[in-house]
């Protein structure tokens, strides 16, 4: 069991009062998580004691910085059970990770007429890079439909596999519906027709145990800022074989072995894909974040959030008019996107904010999914290991307040 009170003490922002006397109830972790002091201190200590550029320095600070940066990579590799640390490429965020695959693997492997299978519940980050590539290369994009309930239509998926897609790219957890997709099953089926798979782990890696070898994933993309880490750091995991065969993406310092005026040879993995000075302190911060998550235990977090979402859905369903999108609690993470007939999502969010309750409102970078459900925007409350049932109650009070004002 999680000791939530102890955990909360690690998060300085949770002491914040949004206005005098109005404490913060942060229900927007799906957009970005808060950071424990352990993460902030790891970065601050780095800057105050060991800050230096890495890899090419021989002096003490540079050696320390290199060691800390590479140690973070190894711990992050272990966190998702990657077979090798060099399979962890540091990027800015999930979005850059997916673009890296689209630019490098995609341009080297896809030709006119090739099919990419995505889903209707993708975040724009797992749509737009493929749309750009599809336009450039004349590829065909196909989508696994989302059912009314908010699940992927797996029968339709199996029919799409008859098209022999070259790539199947899908989110392991929807940032709107909360749906946890059966990733291992989707990957196994894709592999049977020879497709490469990319898992958008932006929501899954922070909230449930993810084991890339057990999943069989070829690529996994995720962001540090959603899993207690800082902004400015993300990860692309890729299987060695694939990464080795891929051409470089960004060119510059560190990704090369030798440079002449008109030619270069690439460096070994993972450096081949890390051009220029990386987000050093941020990688170190993300290392501290996975240490924190591991110490709490990803299984314990998953379990805690399961109980939380069951309670959230129970409470929201009792409010007349509130419509929550996505599947039943057993298929989803701790995300509740909802609408109310009285008020636009923005207004819900604004009224809640006046009570200190931070929820997000909009299309959550998933416009096609909202279009499918026929709504321009939802309000979204999302939960993490530091949220409590009392905070759910505050949310519910706030929703009644919205009804009062706009009803």
């Amino acid at each position, binding site marked *: 069991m999680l000791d939530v009170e102890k955990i909360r003490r690690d998060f300085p922002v949770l002491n914040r009062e949004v206005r005098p006397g109005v404490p913060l109830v942060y229900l927007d972790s799906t957009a970005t998580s808060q950071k424990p002091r352990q993460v902030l201190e790891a970065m601050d200590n780095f800057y105050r004691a060991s800050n230096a550029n890495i890899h090419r320095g021989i002096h003490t600070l540079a050696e320390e910085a290199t060691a800390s940066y590479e140690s973070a990579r190894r711990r992050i590799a272990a966190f998702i059970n990657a077979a090798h640390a060099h399979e962890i490429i540091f990027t800015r965020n999930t979005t850059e990770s997916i673009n890296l695959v689209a630019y490098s693997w995609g341009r080297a492997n896809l030709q006119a007429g090739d099919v990419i299978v995505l889903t209707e519940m993708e975040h724009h980050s797992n749509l737009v890079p493929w749309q750009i590539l599809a336009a450039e290369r004349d590829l065909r994009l196909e989508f696994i439909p989302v059912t009314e309930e908010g699940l992927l239509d797996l029968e339709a998926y199996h029919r799409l596999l008859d098209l022999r897609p070259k790539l199947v790219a899908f989110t392991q957890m929807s940032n709107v519906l909360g749906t946890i997709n059966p990733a291992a099953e989707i990957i196994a089926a894709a592999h049977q027709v020879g497709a490469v798979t990319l898992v958008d782990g932006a929501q899954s890696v922070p909230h449930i145990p993810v084991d890339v070898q057990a999943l069989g994933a070829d690529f996994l993309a995720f962001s540090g800022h959603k899993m207690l880490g800082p902004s400015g750091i993300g990860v692309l995991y890729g299987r060695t074989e694939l990464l080795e065969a891929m051409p470089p993406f960004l060119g510059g310092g560190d990704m090369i072995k030798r440079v002449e005026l008109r030619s270069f040879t690439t460096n070994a993995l993972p450096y081949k894909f890390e051009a220029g000075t990386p987000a050093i302190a941020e990688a170190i911060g993300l290392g501290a974040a996975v240490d924190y998550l591991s110490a709490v235990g990803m299984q314990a977090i998953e379990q805690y959030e399961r109980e939380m979402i069951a309670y959230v859905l129970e409470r929201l369903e009792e409010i007349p008019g509130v419509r929550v999108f996505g599947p039943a609690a057993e298929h989803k993470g701790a995300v509740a996107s909802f609408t109310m007939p009285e008020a636009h999502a*923005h207004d819900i969010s604004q009224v809640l904010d006046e009570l200190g309750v931070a929820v997000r409102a909009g299309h959550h970078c998933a416009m096609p999914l909202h279009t499918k459900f026929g709504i321009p925007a939802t309000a979204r409350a999302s939960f993490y290991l530091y949220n409590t049932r009392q905070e759910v109650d505050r949310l519910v009070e706030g929703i009644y307040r919205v009804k009062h004002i706009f009803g």
Partner: protein
Amino acid sequence: MDDLYRELIIDRYKNPQFRGQLDPADITFEDDNPYCGDHIRVDVRLDENNVVTEARYSGEGCSISQASADLLIEYIHGKTLDEVKALTKEDVLDLLGIQLGPVRLKCALLSLKVLKAGAYGLGEATDDLVE
């Protein structure tokens, strides 16, 4: 809270006075706020002296975007086209009478952006119009 949700805004949102579309119109323009999907269209009729004789808005969105559109459209009746082009962010905020953060500001200014893009005859509504 009731500060922001001043009665005026809630009232205009629930009981808009200038909602509708005009056909024909001398100026018609529409656009949306990419961050939230709020959508506004404005239709304006001018007389031979380029004075606004009739104007309406339509679309969907939050109370701030819709109420500010309603207030703005009311305000421009009787104004000249040049006066409309010269409208600023401050004019809209004065009409609303509230303080707004950067995100909600975009909601509040959507109708002004659309209106000015139409008044200038632009192909696209850009943020410069309301800065």
